[in-house]
């Protein structure tokens, strides 16, 4: 007993010595800006450190789920925001954030270097930081091996030669799934999109709950080596699937892309607004924009920022992506998802 007690006391002491109850490292000093963002946020530490060197501002990153969850967290906490700035509200959710008054107006001096192209409101409460395109990806090796011509458009996907070959994500549970649905609505219009999806369903399209399952299990072009050679993913995905020969194994169909713009803004009610503005400037700066492709698999919103070498061949920015106005998405999103669910019997 006494030996055991000794062991236990020693163990507890050892464990609690290293425990974080004691040390409270919130970094909530006067020169700290809390940046609320989504799960996909990633930035090299050197770049954040360099920013701190230049301005004396430490960026404390807090992640809150995907773009939808992030927006909802911001809406729920708008009376007493959980941060000073937010990054990652995308064009699908921008209207909700704006109509709920989550963001304060701020025009960054960096905004006229390209981000302005994607402006959503005249008060400049949101600045575009990056753009990402959701496109149908195909496993080029599979099509070559089976002697089937590669599909190119939405219309191709409902042709008999592509029966049972495609996997898409459920728009209710997946953001690329929602983007693809919006892409088909942009392409076929309110009148005809359901008709298109009926044909897609009749052609044996498979639905997965999330991108992880669709891409890493159902898709034949990923390391999961699934059974289906057509998947809804990102325009940038082929850059991650380059073989030892340096050639991409997959390809994005550039006629099937839907563009999502990700925005950043200063949170209304932040006591730190002036420093939060500096963080927005930083997100739009050449320095930060040069990191977004490698770190977050998205394209910089700023003009003249070079893409990584592999991207220029494997994952060029789609020239003519579709998109819907933010308020149209806001008005239709729930209804479209509901219609999609009953259409697909999900």
């Amino acid at each position, binding site marked *: *007993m006494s030996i*055991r007690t000794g062991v*236990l006391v020693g*163990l507890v002491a050892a*464990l*609690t010595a*290293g*425990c*974080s*109850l004691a040390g*409270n490292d*919130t970094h909530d000093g006067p020169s700290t800006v*809390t940046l609320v963002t989504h*799960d*996909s946020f*990633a*930035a090299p*530490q050197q770049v954040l450190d360099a920013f701190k060197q230049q301005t004396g501002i430490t960026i*404390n*990153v*807090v*992640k809150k*789920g995907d773009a*939808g*969850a992030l927006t*909802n*967290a911001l*809406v*729920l*906490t708008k009376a007493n925001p*959980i*941060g000073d700035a937010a990054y990652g509200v995308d064009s699908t959710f921008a209207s*909700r954030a704006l109509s709920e008054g989550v963001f304060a107006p701020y025009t960054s001096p960096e905004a006229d270097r390209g981000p302005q192209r994607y402006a959503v409101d005249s008060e400049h409460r949101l600045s575009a930081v990056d753009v990402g395109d959701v496109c149908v990806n195909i496993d080029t090796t599979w099509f070559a091996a089976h002697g089937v011509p590669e599909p190119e458009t939405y219309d191709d996907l409902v042709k008999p030669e592509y029966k049972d070959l495609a996997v898409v994500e*459920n728009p*209710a*549970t997946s953001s690329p799934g929602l983007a693809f649905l919006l892409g088909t609505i942009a392409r076929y219009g309110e009148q005809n999109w359901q008709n298109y999806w009926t044909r897609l369903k009749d052609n044996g399209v498979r*639905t*997965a*709950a999330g*991108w*992880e*399952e669709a*891409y*890493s*299990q*159902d898709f034949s072009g990923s*390391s999961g*080596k699934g*059974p289906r050679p057509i998947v809804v*993913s990102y325009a940038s*995905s082929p850059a*991650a*699937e380059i073989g*030892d020969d340096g050639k991409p194994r997959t390809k994005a169909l550039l006629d099937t892309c839907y563009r999502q713009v990700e925005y950043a803004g200063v949170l209304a009610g932040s006591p730190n607004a002036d420093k939060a503005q500096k963080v927005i400037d930083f997100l739009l700066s050449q320095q930060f924009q040069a990191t977004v492709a490698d*770190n977050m*698999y998205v394209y910089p919103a700023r003009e003249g920022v070079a893409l990584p070498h592999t991207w220029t061949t494997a994952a060029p920015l789609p020239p003519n992506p579709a998109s819907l106005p933010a308020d149209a998405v806001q008005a239709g999103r*729930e209804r479209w998802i509901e219609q999609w*669910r009953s259409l*697909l019997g*999900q």
Partner: protein
Amino acid sequence: MALLARPVSRTGLGLAALAVLPLGFLVVFFAWPVGAILRLGFVDGGVLGALAEGETWRLAWFTVAQAAGSTAIAVVAGLPVAYLLARVRLPGIPVVRTLVLVPFVLPTVVVGLAFRALWTDGGWLSIVLANAFFNVAVVGRTVAGLWAVLDSRAEDAARALGASRWRAFRSVTLPALMPAITSAAAVVFLFCATSFGVVLILGGARYRTLETEIYLRTENLLDLTGAAALSLVQIAAVLAALVLGAAARRRRESALRLRSRRETARRPAGGEWAVVGAAVAVLGLLLTPIAALLVRSLSTADGWSLAGYRALSSTGNDGTLQVSGWEAAMNSLRTATDATVLAMIIGVSASVLLVALRRSPGRLARGVGESMDAALMLPLGVSAVTVGFGYLVTLDALPGDLRRSPLLVPLAQALVVIPLVIRTVLPVVRSIDDRLRQAAATLGASPARVWREIDVPLTFRAVVAAAGFGYVVALGEFGATSFLARPQTPTLPVAIAALIARPGQLNNQMAYAACALLMLVTAAAVIVIDRLASGRVGEF
């Protein structure tokens, strides 16, 4: 009047002091945040309308049905394992004790993917099997805890009187084990009814439970009214399961003659080998997905590779994580330690309080005790996303804006661990004969001395076992952690989820290597704890 009031009020005062900690914690970190979110749902109106929808009841039905199916399978698979752990003297049993707990901590997203790889279109059956996979350990270890110390002489007597082995088991041993089985089943049912990742991945959008629908409506649709309505239904279902579980536990009050495992375990003979065979088969099935994960962590398009394991010392392909895999493992250990310490302080004081309430005279106190017991279990049955969003809208009112504090993750994990601590410690505290204490007090021992000489030694092992189980649960907790963890300090499950959400072979391999690391850490923790508690386990 004064004569009557004095002793009551002194006990009452002591109990009240003891109640402050667990009740205070429950109110501040559970009832208030969850209540605030539910209230937001009610403010918008329409909760009653949402309750009346046929869809709500279809979801409730599927939730209960899949959980009942998983529970049944977990019990059937868990019993032979319990027998193996409790009654069989063969080499390798300690290894089995450790191995059965490993599935319990695997991140649901990984298990979901593993099961989906086995049956691409498994539908509801794969949901049921995956949920059972997680929970075989709960049944096996809970039932073994009682079985190992159950006196076998009654069974031997039945055999001597000519009963077959099966008959003796059915009419003597099984009834004695029944309280442990039903108690385990109630907990497993709770876990399965509220399991989230598995249902989301394996059910696609076709098979949905209350839990996945609450998540969808809260996190994606911001339909707090619908989420509130579904939460009410879920809480009602959870309370029903708790009442059933409590009824089963009450029957366990009947004194059992307990013996040490050393006396009861022996080499199996005859038909008993069939049960051992069944247990081994169950173990084989449990290890299949685990082996598949290990294979996956080692295989690349061009053959075998350790690249995934080497990558654990990096931050992933193109800096997916902000810290390395090893640092994430260290974070896991640290937060799980904090959560366990918190949960032990609160869980043990709650157990002592509950036993005191139960023993105190008067039906009111007993009634309060029963309601408190149920209230303390409730966190197991409330959606993690509800708790997470609740923290966002309430905890800024506390000094220091806790929403930005690194303490938030251990607090949320402790919420999940506390019910398990109580279920493990309470039965043992309850079984201490009060006459021992009274005798010591009569002989002049101070209350502190009584506590040190009687309560601590008798409950020590159960407390260590509870801490161990709680630690393992905190290590694997994903729902609340993923919502609250900061990117600078991800836990291993959070890091795995982040890695698996990126394209590229290396990220994938690293995710599976991180799973292997999580299993290793878990196994090591279990071994240490089992050493300390050596054999004696409460309800788990």
